[in-house]
């Protein structure tokens, strides 16, 4: 494997971390969905590049799934959902962007320290891929924690899951990778079609999750 192919793999994986940061501060629904689509496209390119340099044609399948399902179909569907729910004009309060970004930087540093040390014996491609993947995963988690809107939480979860696919493809020769990504994508499609979104909306007249919290049954 020559230096250039490694550099490109790093650039694409690092690009995902960057887009994850962009997701953190989007406060408008449509902008959020567009950035998420970008996230999926970068993932798809990264997986396709891995397929190319690892000489593993079966990896083109998850790359195609990421591009079609997560880069196009899901963002478009969520777009429609957002319009039908009537929340496309809402500006979400993503309290304390500066603090969230700092926290995100901390998480990336943490995953670098942990993974680069733990996987010191592995080949550089896999090692750095894992470090980037863990960063994307933790940033997705951070996004889910800071958001209070059901749609944004789903986007956060899907970006987290993109990190997992990145990790799975970086692990050379990992079997079942296709199956796992398909299983996960089914899961995603299942949420997005969002039995829930509409039901929550129908019951609570809002998709703000704070409204849900009041119905604990015990708080009263």
């Amino acid at each position, binding site marked *: 494997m020559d230096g250039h192919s490694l550099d490109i793999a790093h650039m694409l994986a690092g690009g995902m971390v960057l887009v994850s940061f962009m997701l953190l501060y989007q406060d408008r629904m449509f902008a959020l969905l567009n950035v998420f689509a970008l996230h999926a496209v970068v993932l798809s390119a990264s997986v396709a590049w891995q397929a190319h340099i690892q000489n593993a044609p079966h990896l083109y399948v998850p790359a195609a799934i990421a591009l079609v399902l997560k880069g196009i179909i899901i963002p478009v569907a969520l777009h429609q959902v957002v319009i039908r729910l009537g929340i496309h004009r809402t500006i979400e309060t993503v309290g304390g962007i500066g603090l969230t970004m700092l926290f995100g930087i901390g998480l990336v540093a943490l995953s670098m320290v*942990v*993974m680069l*040390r*733990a*996987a*010191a*014996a*592995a080949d550089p491609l*896999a090692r750095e891929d*894992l470090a980037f*993947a*863990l960063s994307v*995963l933790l940033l997705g*988690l951070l996004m*889910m924690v800071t958001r209070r809107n*059901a749609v944004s*939480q789903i986007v956060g*979860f899907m970006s*987290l*899951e993109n990190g*997992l696919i990145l*990790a*799975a493809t970086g*692990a*050379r*020769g*990992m*079997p*079942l990778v296709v*199956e*796992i990504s398909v*299983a996960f994508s089914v*899961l995603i499609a*299942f*949420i997005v079609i969002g*039995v*829930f979104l509409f*039901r*929550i909306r129908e*019951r*609570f007249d809002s998709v703000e*999750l704070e409204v*849900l*919290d009041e*119905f*604990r*049954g*015990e708080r009263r």
Partner: protein
Amino acid sequence: MTSFLSDLPFDPITTILVIPAASAMLLVLLPGYWLTARLNVLAALLTFVAALSLLVVRPAPTAYLFVDDLNVVFIVLSTFVGFTTSAFSASYIAHELEIGRLTRQYLRFYHAMYQTLMFSMNLGLLANNIGLMWVAIELATLTTVLMVGIYRTHEALEAAWKYFILGSVGIALALFGTILVYMAARPVIGEGHDAMVWTALVEKAAGFSPELLNVAFVFLMLGYGTKVGLAPLHAWLPDAHAEGPTPISAVLSGLLLNVALYALLRFKILMTANTAAFAPGPLMVTLGLVSLIFAGFMLYRRRDIKRMFAYSSIEHMGIITFAFGMGGPLANFAGLMHMTMHSLTKSAIFYAVGHISQAKGTQKIAEIRGLTESHPVLGWGLVMGVVAIAGLPPMGIFMSEFLIVSSTFARQPLLALLVVFGLLIAFGALLLRLNEIAFGKPIGSSAPVEASYVPLFAHLGLVLAAGIYLPTPLVAWFQGVARLLG
């Protein structure tokens, strides 16, 4: 006997998986309540019989599925409780249909989902491949999410959403851990499928990179620990138990938590096989103790009867995780025993609670009083169940808790004191509430309810019998498994 059985015309492992999968497909197609409920029971019974045959025949491991002494315990327990719960569910759901809480259209879906859940749990337990095991547990999570939300009330939707989000994050972390285990195994076993097969992993674990295994175990512990319901990752558990249909609460508490625990135990074996990696015990002991004591205190504040017993499940999963974390033949034996007893008792309690809340039309503890007077059989059944779960003699849980505490005293007296403290706290809360619910002047409806008492008393009878006398072959079997766990 064995030679005759080894010529069985069918392969027990395949049968255990095919029956629930095929019946799930069949149940989706069939209309009507009477037929589907009975088919559901029949399928669960057949699966249980197939699981029993694993006690005498031991098929050779394949690349995807295998049976050893450890997972047989889980499979037999799981299929048995699956069978009794399907019998309870038949009478419970009939009542829900009558009062219109469930519509017939959802019923088909309910029975199909029940069998899908059985299938995925059995697959998770039988999997010889860490990826396959993960997929199975994910499938089990998704089916239960759908079942929890089936009533479509505010509370049910909130519970399902919370369960979904927390459960999927947990399962995602577990996948990351699984990938790391593969990364650790790859240099030793080689690329591809073999590096995810249990039997190969355990054999070669000594050569894996300990640093990678350490990080992997932390992720697996957080991920599968969420599914076990360990505090502070337990937030989904009380809601999911309280708002779904009661048969699902019984299956969640009695079985699904065990399946996640089984996954953790497998990875614990892997960690112990590699001497350079950190010992997983202390992490499990800590999380177990935190869950035990936290849940003990939380029990006092419950106003909803199903939610209360959900917290009691967190408490007991804490005790079990603690016992396995301590390790050693005696503590492992006690942990296995406690797990079995807890599954039987907790599902029995949920059977009783399900019929009680149907009879009284509420789950609020304040509105349920004097059960032993208004519904003597259910009331005394609940009393017996709570006596068992609180750890009073002569029930089986007393014995396993006694074993856990005494074996800990011999090694770490301070930890044993903490366990006793947690047990006493929970004991106080349970008896306090039991006194209110079961005795005193009855409030609310005293109308008789059509209930199925057989599953309830069958479970309690087994727990009582285990408390009085454990058959020697069973003890020998559990001891063998305890040694396997290290």
